[in-house]
């Protein structure tokens, strides 16, 4: 659980940021849908509006023709021709195939009408189709009078139920009315295209037409305009709606039979936007059906969704990473501090160990130095002071006694016939003999200031500070007897049957700067005299002597 704790905050931030990204993405998607929907609605509304405006323009145009009849009081082909010519129905109004006038002719006046038309327009004028009807509604003039329009002349519109319905509606309302879908010929019936006819009634001049009965009673005819739907749509101002399929039906339901313009291709995609709008044009209902195509989304769609997903996800990951680094950085810092503390403790422990070892080393070194000092001042075989230490102490004691004026005595002894002892008993016995003699010296020169030393070979010496000559002789004699008491057999000795030693004892006057060698020479002389006097004896001078002329008393062995 504690391992997961540093991940909690980054994961929380990641989840939160991804949620925010999703919300923004969803918001953008909805906005995008709304924008597309608005664009689509705008296209549909604009298209319907363009058609509506154009139809209002045609309405106005036909009212102009209606006005012409109202002002001139009747049909005049030249006036009509000039008027239409003045309208300049060029390509801007290319939807209009023809503008014409239909005269309402009572059945009784048919012949009169035909005769008049043949006189005025064409000698072969006839009302088509033939047959007896109560009223005839032939086209008496059409502009421009070229191409397929020529076939309209004399054509009675009434028998066609589609045309008749619009004509009746216009007649009864006094308003423009358009027919249902018609196949309108351009040059011939073969090239007929979907279209319609707009009718506007013309009433007899000066007669009332404010109700249906009056309108029917005083109807003079209709002005009409024939339209090709395709050309009408092509001549509309403004851009054609792009990215959408548009179909206009002459009904409130889509059907191939009612298709006036365009088409809706293929099956609808699930995401396609589609809508229908119904337009009442001059009393007739058209249905505008519009549906988006794939390129509508490419043209009008916003492409921010991918950007939001990429940017949002990247930002989420970056923030989560940053949070992880911050959270984990603290844990790592704590870990690092713990490691460093542990290592520091370890180093302290190691330092303490080293310090202990150093103390131990110091002690060992001190001990070694002490041992070395002992070794440097001690004779290894006997444990007594060695010659060098003896010389140092003698010089020091001589100087000290010279200052204090106290008596300093010196004993020098030599084991008798020691060479012969070695020869007879071997060196091991010889060394043992030396150790035993040394022990006797140690036992006899017992004061702290006394110094017993192995002077060399089988020679030993004792320095006895603040000791007069008699005291020194006593100690020397004690040593001699001690050696003798050891009873170390020595058959080659001429002095006794055991090991013995000869002694010289001297108590020289100490003066500052006097060489110690002179004292040694004197005592050595006394020793020599003991040797020569039969050995195993102590030679000394009876009183403190001058070093230049020593007295030679001797004690018998």
């Amino acid at each position, binding site marked *: 659980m504690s391992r997961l704790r540093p991940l909690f905050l980054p994961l929380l931030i990641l989840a939160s940021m991804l949620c925010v990204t999703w919300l923004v993405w969803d918001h953008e998607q909805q906005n995008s849908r*709304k924008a597309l*929907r608005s664009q689509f609605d705008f296209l*549909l*509304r604009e298209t*319907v509006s363009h058609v*509506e405006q154009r139809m209002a323009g045609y309405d106005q145009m036909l009212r102009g023709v209606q006005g012409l009849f109202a002002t001139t009081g009747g049909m005049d082909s030249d006036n009509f021709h000039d008027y239409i010519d003045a309208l300049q129905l060029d390509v801007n109004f290319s939807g209009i195939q023809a503008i014409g006038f239909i005269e309402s002719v009572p059945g009784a006046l048919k012949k009169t009408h035909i005769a008049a038309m043949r006189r005025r327009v064409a000698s072969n004028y006839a009302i088509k189709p033939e047959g007896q009807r109560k009223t005839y509604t032939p086209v008496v003039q059409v502009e421009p009078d070229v191409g397929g329009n020529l076939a309209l002349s004399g054509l009675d519109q009434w028998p066609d139920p589609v045309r008749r319905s619009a004509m009746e509606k216009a007649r*009864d*309302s*006094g*308003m423009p009315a358009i027919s249902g879908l018609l196949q309108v010929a351009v040059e011939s019936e073969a090239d007929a295209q979907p279209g319609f006819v707009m009718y506007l009634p013309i009433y007899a001049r000066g007669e009332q037409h*404010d109700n*249906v009965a009056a309108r029917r009673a005083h109807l003079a005819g209709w002005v009409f305009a024939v339209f090709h739907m395709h050309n009408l749509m092509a001549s509309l101002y403004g851009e054609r709606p792009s990215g959408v399929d548009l179909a206009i039906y002459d009904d*409130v*339901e889509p059907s191939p039979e009612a298709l006036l313009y365009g088409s809706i291709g293929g099956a609808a995609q699930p995401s396609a*936007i*589609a*809508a*229908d*709008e*119904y*337009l*009442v044009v001059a*009393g007739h*209902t058209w*249905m505008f059906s519009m549906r988006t195509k794939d390129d509508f989304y490419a043209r009008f769609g916003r492409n921010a969704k991918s950007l939001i997903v990429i940017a949002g996800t990247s930002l989420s990951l970056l923030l989560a990473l940053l949070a992880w680094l911050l959270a984990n950085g603290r844990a790592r810092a704590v870990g690092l501090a713990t490691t460093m503390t542990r290592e520091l403790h370890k180093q302290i422990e190691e330092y303490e160990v080293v310090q202990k070892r150093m103390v131990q080393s110091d002690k060992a070194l001190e001990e070694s130095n002490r041992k070395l000092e002992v070794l440097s001042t001690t004779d290894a075989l006997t444990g007594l002071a060695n010659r060098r230490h003896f010389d140092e102490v003698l010089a020091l004691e001589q100087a000290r006694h010279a200052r204090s004026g106290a008596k300093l005595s010196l004993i020098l002894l030599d084991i008798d016939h020691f060479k012969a002892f070695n020869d007879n008993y071997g060196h091991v016995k010889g060394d043992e003999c030396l150790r035993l003699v040394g022990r006797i010296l140690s036992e006899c020169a017992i004061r702290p200031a006394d110094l017993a030393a192995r002077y060399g070979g089988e020679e030993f010496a004792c320095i006895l500070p603040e000791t007069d000559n008699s005291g020194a002789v006593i100690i020397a004699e004690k040593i001699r007897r001690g050696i003798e008491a050891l009873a170390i057999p020595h058959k080659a000795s001429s002095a006794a049957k055991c090991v013995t030693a000869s002694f010289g004892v001297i108590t020289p006057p100490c003066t500052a700067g006097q060489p110690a060698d002179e004292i040694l020479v004197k005592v050595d002389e006394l020793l020599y005299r003991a040797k020569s006097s039969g050995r195993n004896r102590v030679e000394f001078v009876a009183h403190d002597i001058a070093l230049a002329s020593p007295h030679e008393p001797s004690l018998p062995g």
Partner: protein
Amino acid sequence: MPASISRKTIGRYLGCLLLLLCTLGSAVAAGPDCSRPLTLALHEHGLLYSAETNTGIDKDFADELIRRSGCKVKVNVMPRARIWQLIESGALDFSLSGIADAERNRFASFAWYLSNKYYLLVRKDANVKSLADVERSDRFQLGVIRSFRYSESANRLVDKLDAASRVSQANGLAPLYQTLLRNRIQGMIIEPFDTPVLVEKKLRVLTNLIEFNDPAVPHGLIMSRKSLTTVEQKKWRDLVNAMRSDGTVHRIFEKYFNPEIAEAMTNFQAPQ
């Protein structure tokens, strides 16, 4: 004292003349400014106006209003959407039976003369009993007249369905009735003006009415803020109020509705 009598008489005449001039002046000032030809547009909508018969409530109302104003007013018939467009631009001065919303209040001023509720006319086979059913049903397609606004909850329903591409627009009532009969749409919003159509048996047996639970919405003379000054708007509003208070409006409605409905539609507290 002929001279003094003469002066007194002249003074009286002058006083009377001044009083007459003041009365005439205030009478002229009370009426709308007729110095230019004005324009008013009707739209075909049920009993409000039928171009075919050139009759309707709005036509009668317009005739009386024009007569009282003494102005020359050119009356046209055009789609409702175009009327609002022209009112906003100031090219059109008046129209009738308009309802307000925040957007329209920006460019139009109103003089109320009728109030009515809205109803949802639904096909029985659409299986909707309430407004909530309409929102829930994915198949339900609503037909509305472009640019029409209704009562609050009706507007909310239209906007919601429009956002879901479930609204078909038309520029008049007639195609909506046709599409409802042909089941291209399953419902449409109607007003009392449209109820005579329901007399038609074919439609009556096919449909049900659901009432929007909103208060009645006032309708009135629409005046373009761009073409009429505030003072002029007030004068026209006074004319409308006079038509209400003297019972003219009520009488017009009684021509088209039974007395109870006419009373309910014309006897209301007009918003300020």
